[in-house]
């Protein structure tokens, strides 16, 4: 049972994000990168599948930030058996098309039984990566999944629908699954172990012939949401507040 998890880093939203000078993308020099939280769920689900049966988990990503190694060491600390990255020089802000081509060309040679990835990401809210990976590798795809169980050559997955509806699918393996949430919260990755692995673990670098990184789309402009109004706070005692409310209603011609 060979399980592959495709991951990527995204800008941390804990800090203020800034736009680049051209106004076409984020200023990637001014942001911190973190692992996409849905990918974190995918790693956990992969390790849970492995622990429930047998097999090995490989976590793979494209290093577009120069900081992917730390994420891969963390994946090892959580129970992945091997980690790999696509060889080459890449810039932050790779499109989903580019990610999918690079990752699928590396993953297909691993002959995986199961490919997991986060169902979406802050820079991929419409969840393109999973379906694209599946299409490029000619495998079936199920997304928005929050539980995976494998028996023989079949995976039983639970997919969430709007309104709290749940569907159970049987999927013939190999397949690509887009993970919404693992069946348990992600486990702790001890920094003691991560730091030790940083000294001892090896990250496989996978060469790929893929060099088409364009998506066919270009961003003309990226802007902050425009504020269209704000709330007025009315201070003072009850009488003053009531007076002010009446005045406002009068101004607007509502009474």
């Amino acid at each position: 049972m060979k399980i592959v998890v495709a991951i990527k880093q995204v800008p941390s939203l804990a800090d203020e994000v800034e736009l680049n000078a051209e106004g076409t993308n984020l200023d990637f020099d001014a942001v911190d990168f973190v692992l996409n939280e849905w990918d974190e769920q995918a790693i956990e689900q992969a390790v849970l599948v492995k622990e429930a049966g047998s097999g090995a988990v490989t976590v793979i990503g494209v290093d577009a930030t120069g900081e992917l190694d730390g994420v891969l060491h963390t994946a090892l600390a959580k129970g992945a058996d091997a980690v790999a990255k696509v060889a080459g020089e890449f810039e932050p802000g790779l499109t989903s098309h580019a990610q999918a081509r690079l990752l699928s060309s590396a993953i297909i040679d691993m002959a995986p039984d199961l490919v997991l990835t986060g169902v979406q990401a802050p820079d991929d809210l419409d969840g393109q990566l999973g379906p694209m990976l599946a299409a490029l590798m000619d495998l079936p795809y199920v997304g928005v999944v929050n539980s995976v169980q494998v028996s023989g050559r079949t995976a039983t997955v639970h997919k969430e629908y709007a309104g709290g509806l749940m569907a159970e699918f049987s999927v013939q393996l190999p397949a690509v699954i887009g993970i919404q949430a693992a069946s348990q919260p992600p486990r702790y990755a001890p920094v003691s172990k991560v730091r030790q692995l940083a000294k001892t673990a090896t990250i496989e670098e996978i060469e790929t012939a893929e060099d088409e990184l364009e998506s066919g789309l270009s961003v003309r402009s990226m802007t902050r949401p425009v504020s269209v109004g704000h709330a007025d706070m009315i201070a003072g005692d009850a009488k003053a507040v009531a007076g002010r409310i009446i005045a406002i209603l009068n101004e607007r011609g509502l009474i």
Partner: protein
Amino acid sequence: MLTLAEEIAFILLVVVLGGLTAVGFRGIATLVRSGRAAPPREDVPRRLMSALIDVGLQRPIFKARPVLSTFHAFIFFGFSFYFLVNVADLFEGFIPGFALAYGAGGAAGPFLGGVANLFNLVADILSVLTLVGMIAFLVRRFGMKDKRLSFNDGVLLHPGVQAGGVRRDSAIVGTFIMLHVGSRFLGQTLRLAETGKADPFMPFASLTSLAFGGLSASALSLGIHVTWWTAIGLIVCFLPYFVFSKHIHLMVAPLNLGLIKPGPRGLLDPAVPKGAPDDMAPGAAQLQDLGWPRLLDAYACIMCNRCQEVCPAHGSGRPLSPAALEVNKRYLFNHHFTSLAKGEQADIPLLAMAISPEAVWSCTTCYACVRVCPVGNEPMADIVDIRRRMIYDTAEIDSGIQGALEGIGKNGNWFGKVARTRARWAKDAGVPIKDATKEPVEYLWFVGDTASFDQRVVPLTQKVARVLSHAGVDFGILNNEERNAGNDVRRVGEEGLFEMLVEQNMKAFGKAQFKQIITTDPHSLNTLRNEYPQFGAEYPVHHYTAVLLELLEAGKLQVTEKLGRYLATYHDPCYLGRYNQGYEPPRRLLELAGMRFAEMPRNRENSYCCGAGGGQIWLGSAPAGERPAESRIREALETLSPITGDAEQLLFVVSCPKDVVMYTDAVKTSGNEGKIVVRDIIEVLEEALGLTEPAGLPDTAQVPV
């Protein structure tokens, strides 16, 4: 005195049993050396010498239980002198005509006769004192059934301990001492009875000899032979038992005290020995993963349970006993002795056999157990090492602790706040606060998580800022660059995260210009002062109480109002007091503030933990039973209530952000609201300095429409 047959028998006994014992002792040495390496011990001969002096004066044991310690001192002095007595008895046995009674029989001349008289007098008195001490111990254990010798429910105990092994061992050792010393004393008695003359230098033996005056010469001679054997022969027979008995403490304890960890109390040993291979797992899962000093601890332990008595986890009914941990280790050594003595690695998983996971996570790392131990054991160090491996193996981590560690890893604090909000408190401090990364300052104020984020503590942090500013102190903060200092992270066992935090904070230090560090948080103080230097960050680190005292003494702050209307007691935080000896400045400050003051029974070195340290404050579940902080509030009220007099208010004064939170809470949960008020020392001082702002809410609600 001995017949030839007796002499041959004795020599054979010495060769056989002495040889057996030597093999056993060599096995113990091999076993202890099979533990992991520890930081090198420096200056060993001098430290051993000073340990011997301490033991000679019985200093370590008088740290607690003064009455029992006195009885121990009787036995100790008796036994120590008995080395000489036993040699003298050997001479009496093997050298015909050698006898020490009556000034060595008058044949030795006045000087040697005088020496013999002195020797006889000391031996006579100490024999009786030893017997008295031993009887007291036996009565206490078997007659009065002292509860301190039993364990809490749920404490993991080795089957041998459950089966009463410690009681049996104590009975055997007690019997041995009674027989050995009793026989020697009786032997001397019979010698005096033989001549029918009292010896003024053997008052007790002279007295008892009167009872044997009627015996025949042959009966007396037989008695002398029998008591020689039950005194001296018994020692030889007892020797091999030392290998398996807690009584070996009389040899290992001084050694253990001499080999005690160098450096400050607040510096933990590294999680893997220096120079170990990169892939070595940190901490301990198996007994032999512990450092060799931790293995030696088990042999020094006399199973007195003093550590348990002062343990806040034990005191609140939790299944942790530092004593049980040491006792279990020793029983495991005994059980696996044959293979361990050969230097083999035995399969002895600590969490299954020595201490339960729940006990491991009950420890507050308050250091009380280590401090009180009369033989220099460090059970707390075992617990930290076990946690290190549990974290590394991600086994049984409490969800609260996991959340705290994840938050600290991500944001540098455990309050779930993003890093850029860390210095938000400084905005409404009422005084400008410098950014030490932008302009040089004298003092870098390391604020810490609780003082930065806990809404109950933030107003106190702001008061400290105002008082320091009022005194003209040149200080600044690291703003959002500061990270949790890592003291409790390290004590929870997350060595990797601790190292990461040290690196992050040192990077921030590198951006700032300052000469000294000040902090209100004893936990941060401890690691900054004692552990950061190991990573290259060497700065003088001060607690705010010490700086405030300096400012008062230098006249830069002046008390304008004496606070005689308050009656206060003070709680020593573990990491300021026991770990860093910061006992006096807080007390001096209270004195200068002019308040009436009374010490709680447990103060200074013997202070009782609030229960928050070592990651306890992060634990997801609150255990049942009286919590340590509630016990402390009760203690404060028991101290202050009877002497309230005309005091308007009882105060429980603290000097640690965690204490503010813990005790404010404990006053409520113990139903003592209105009886006593928890105050940080800065509040008291602000009032005495006349700097308190006018009553009422600060005017911050004006938002323009």
